[in-house]
């Protein structure tokens, strides 16, 4: 099958199709930024009316970036990329690997830029000296004798002609990563109370429970504020437990997640609970206990004969500051009643001993759970894309020919060059090279 004659093939290889893809993908993408995505069906009916909502549903507008037609557009775009690259690569390959020493002299005579010189030195000496000068300027010339003269050729970075195709490849690599991610990736979240252990999370799409294969304990959640009252940091202290062993500890914050066995746990949200941790320490024995107290509910520390409870509270303000009124009894003498502020230690004298109290509001931490084996291909694609763009935009394939022959008793030198882009910049390089040849004492070139 001859590719050039097949209209089906040339359709998929065409730039027209690429422009069509760019245009339709851009227009379609706008729709998804205007119409809210992934809302419940009721939201669309309320906002757009029943008929429009039904049309939206038929066209998968509520989840348009995953709809059959949008994915098909991306597939069409990929096919276009692949076919166009296959279609053009052989030509580029030929350009990169072509035998430039076979270039006809009359073609060199029409090239821009070019310069002509004459020298009184014999051909062999001129050839050797020109080669030397070219080499000194970073051009490594190859040489071929013909019946009339000698042709020298040197080039720089011929492979940059592949630049555009490197960029095309990078897009396909990124798509491959995205496909791997959507096939084998996992994504979900979980809300866990401090001190609790979890071994599952809830899938983002199905809301089903998914087992992790190991356990994580939330040791602590801490919320800090700036003086202005805006949150400064959300932090969860996590411990990974596997087979009853603590294997890893890490404090995670919004931009610094925990990685374990391909899963990544991100600090996503939090929820303040109505409960408070109250730590009680016997100052004589040093014995300490953490109790979770809910306002109005009596708590017991059985072994120490202690009963306590929160009988009143001032709710946390926007800096998270609160006050608890504690009722406390250790069975000896009158019960104590006192105020306990957040983040402060209160010491209470009892007939036998003193107790130190501390409190902390109980939080649940919201964790985002993700596993995406496609991330690395995507990242590699990113790197390839940036390199490819720099190559495609800013580097050029530069070629220089020098033809040396003899007419009469004079040696003639023809220098010609070409670059596939940035011609102005190349002309400067070419001029500098020619100047070097002119300045060469041994060559004794004179302009013709």
């Amino acid at each position, binding site marked *: 099958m001859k590719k050039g004659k097949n209209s089906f093939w040339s359709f998929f290889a065409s*730039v027209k199709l*690429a*422009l069509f893809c*760019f*245009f339709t*993908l*851009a227009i379609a*993408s*706008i729709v*998804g*930024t*205007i119409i*809210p*995505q992934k809302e419940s069906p009721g939201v669309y009916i309320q906002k757009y009316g029943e008929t429009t909502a039904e049309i939206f549903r038929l066209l998968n507008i509520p989840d348009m*970036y995953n709809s059959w037609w949008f994915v098909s557009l991306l597939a069409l775009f990929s096919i276009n990329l692949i076919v166009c690259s296959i279609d053009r690569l052989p030509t580029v390959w030929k350009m990169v690997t072509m035998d430039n020493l076979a270039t006809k002299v009359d073609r060199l005579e029409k090239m821009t830029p070019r310069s002509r010189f004459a020298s009184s030195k014999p051909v062999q000496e001129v050839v050797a000296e020109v080669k030397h000068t070219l080499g000194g300027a970073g051009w490594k010339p190859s040489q071929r004798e013909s019946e009339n003269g000698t042709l020298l050729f040197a080039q720089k970075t011929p492979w940059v002609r592949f630049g*555009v195709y490197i960029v095309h490849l990078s897009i396909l690599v990124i798509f491959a990563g*995205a496909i791997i991610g959507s096939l084998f990736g996992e*994504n979900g979240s979980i809300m866990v109370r401090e001190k609790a252990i979890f071994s599952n999370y809830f899938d983002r799409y199905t809301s089903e429970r998914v087992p992790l294969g190991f356990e994580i304990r939330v040791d602590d959640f801490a919320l800090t504020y*700036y003086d*202005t009252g*805006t*949150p*400064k*940091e*959300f932090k969860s202290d996590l411990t990974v437990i596997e087979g009853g062993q603590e294997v890893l500890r890490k404090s995670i*914050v*919004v*931009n*610094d*997640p925990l990685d374990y066995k391909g899963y*990544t746990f*991100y*600090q*996503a949200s939090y929820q303040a609970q109505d409960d408070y941790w109250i730590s009680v320490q016997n100052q004589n024995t040093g014995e300490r206990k953490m109790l979770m107290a809910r306002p109005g509910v009596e708590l017991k520390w059985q072994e120490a004969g202690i009963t306590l409870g929160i009988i009143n509270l001032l709710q946390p303000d926007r800096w998270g500051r609160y006050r608890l009124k504690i009722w406390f009894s250790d069975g000896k003498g009158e019960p104590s009643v006192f105020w306990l502020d957040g983040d402060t230690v209160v010491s209470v004298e009892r007939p036998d001993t003193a107790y130190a109290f501390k409190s902390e509001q109980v939080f649940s931490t919201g964790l*985002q*759970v*993700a596993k*995406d084996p496609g*991330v690395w291909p*995507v*990242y590699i694609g*990113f790197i390839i*894309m*940036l390199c490819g*763009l*720099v190559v495609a*935009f*800013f580097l050029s394939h530069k070629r220089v020919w020098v033809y040396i022959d003899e007419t009469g008793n004079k040696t003639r030198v023809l220098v010609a060059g070409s670059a596939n882009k940035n011609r102005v910049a190349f002309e400067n390089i070419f001029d500098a090279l020619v100047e070097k040849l002119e300045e060469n004492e041994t060559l004794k070139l004179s302009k013709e």
Partner: protein
Amino acid sequence: MDSSKLLGITTFIYMFSSVIYLALFIFRIKKIGLLATVVTIIGLLVHTAGIGMRWLESYQMGIGHAPLSNMYESLVFFAWSIVLLYIVVEFIYKNKVIGAFAMPFAFGSMAYASLSPEFSDRITPLVPALQSNWLIAHVFTCFIGYAAFAVACGTGIMYLVKLRDKGDSPNSLLATLPPLKVIDDITHKIILFGFIWLTAGIISGAVWANSAWGTYWSWDPKETWSLITWFIYASALHARFTRGWGGKRIAWISIIGFLAVVFTYYGVNFLLSGLHSYGAS
């Protein structure tokens, strides 16, 4: 001298600079060319000092972070990128008339930042989502790209203006503009430059999103609009590389593309909801 004073002075210098460049173009007073460049460079230095000072002040307040965290700071940085890029373009192409089409963008951005009542120039602490080393890389790459597209839009407009030059009088206003071919080449090169930075901006955003939220792409309106912008410029490059598009069409694409940039940067924050909400304050 504090940063807001320096940035206020910068706004005035840019206004002055825009006026000189426009005078240079309209009244063809060649002599003030050097003045225009010197004023612009002084403006850029004051501007740089202002940004540096603001950075320092945030550390003195104990909430140290790069001044790239809200709309006010990003407009200031946008203007800074435009001026820096324009100065480089002026030196490469040895053409000062472009300034009449580029500097007003920088002045506009600064004036909007300082005069608009909806943006506060107060230094505020970083919300947890922005506390990342990616902040500087992401904002820097995006804004160099945006600035390039702003300058390309300027030269695109210049091209369309020059099109009205019938060439009948060598002394006409439009005859002072560079030849169409040169303007076209400048626009194209600046778009190439901007495209790489936009790509780097989108990529740095994706990597950051993945390290903060566990997903490198979520079709958030800001992400999507940056991709739409990318598609617009990608089509310009393809049409030019393979179909030899140039001139008028590229000039128009440079304008349409910049409108998409403005929408990505500004419109999305106010008209659409999404993850980039902190950019709106």
